[in-house]
């Protein structure tokens, strides 16, 4: 048996998301991202670095209870084992757990623990690197999506906090309606003002294509691409 050869020194690993927008880039926490900051009314942001886990288990039962939501709806965990995570009911007995970038290890462990505690047959797969994730924010977002997605985005069909999977520009995509609270423009002053915002999550290798299709569809609404408005 031979000794493992001494590893040659290589550059520190740089992670890249599925998307590359033209223009300068910079490295943030080991991820190479666009250096642009979008300020327009309609923004497409690359959330590739977010932690993404898929959980599978019985549609009803302990796993579901711990994850806090079921198919078609989302739950944001502000406390508890999954604190900081947005759980999306992505399918019957299928969840997508999204967490802040860099929390991969902890969130995976916490989610595994939740699953293990359930006593049900359930599994967790880390798909952080296997998926593309973007956030589309702005009042024109539904009009843009109406050009690429056949699902009715009216409030009565897809309200805030709901999610569905369908074809977007012919790519199978999880669409999550997750409106953003307007800090600055809140006429009622009671924190109820919201800006339309959607997360779009698809298989990684089609991510660039999907983003290009969204940008093309959004040109008439003045879409801009850039770094995420917030780290959520």
């Amino acid at each position, binding site marked *: 048996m031979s000794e493992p050869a001494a590893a040659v020194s290589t550059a520190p690993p740089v992670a890249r998301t599925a998307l590359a927008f033209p223009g300068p880039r910079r490295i943030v926490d080991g991820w190479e991202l666009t250096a642009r900051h979008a300020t327009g009314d309609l923004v497409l942001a690359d959330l590739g670095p977010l932690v993404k886990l898929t959980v599978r288990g019985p549609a009803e039962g302990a796993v579901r209870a711990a994850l806090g939501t079921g*198919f078609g709806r989302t739950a944001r965990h502000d406390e508890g084992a999954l604190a900081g995570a947005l759980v999306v009911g992505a399918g*019957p007995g299928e969840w997508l757990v999204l967490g802040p970038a860099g929390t991969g290890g902890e969130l995976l462990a916490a989610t595994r623990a939740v699953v293990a505690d359930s006593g049900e047959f359930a599994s967790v797969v880390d798909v952080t690197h296997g998926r593309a994730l973007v956030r589309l924010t702005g009042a024109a977002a539904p009009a843009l999506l109406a050009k690429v997605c056949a699902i009715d985005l009216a409030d009565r069909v897809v309200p805030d906090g709901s999610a*569905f999977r369908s074809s977007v520009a012919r790519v199978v995509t999880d669409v999550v309606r997750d409106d953003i609270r307007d800090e600055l423009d809140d006429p009622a002053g009671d924190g109820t003002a919201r800006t339309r915002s959607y997360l779009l999550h698809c298989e990684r290798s089609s991510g660039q294509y999907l983003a290009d299709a969204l940008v093309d569809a959004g040109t008439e609404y003045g879409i801009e691409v850039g770094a995420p408005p917030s780290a959520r």
Partner: protein
Amino acid sequence: MMLLPCPNCGARNVSEFRYVGEAKTRPDPTTATPQEWRRHLYLHRNPAGWTRETWYHGSGCRRYFAIERNTVDNAVRTAGATS
């Protein structure tokens, strides 16, 4: 475009689904004669009217499910319905 009522996702455009075919029972492979097996493989009822069939919701929940469809006018009802 037809709407297909997915039991999980609700009514969706039929283009989100893949048609799998007439619902068939696979004969016991250990006892079926070659002829029986091939009839299972190749023959279809192909009725003009109601038929029970399998669809796959590939662009949605990714579940296989059975549905009844009238092949003459493409009316759809959930499997087991009688009207």
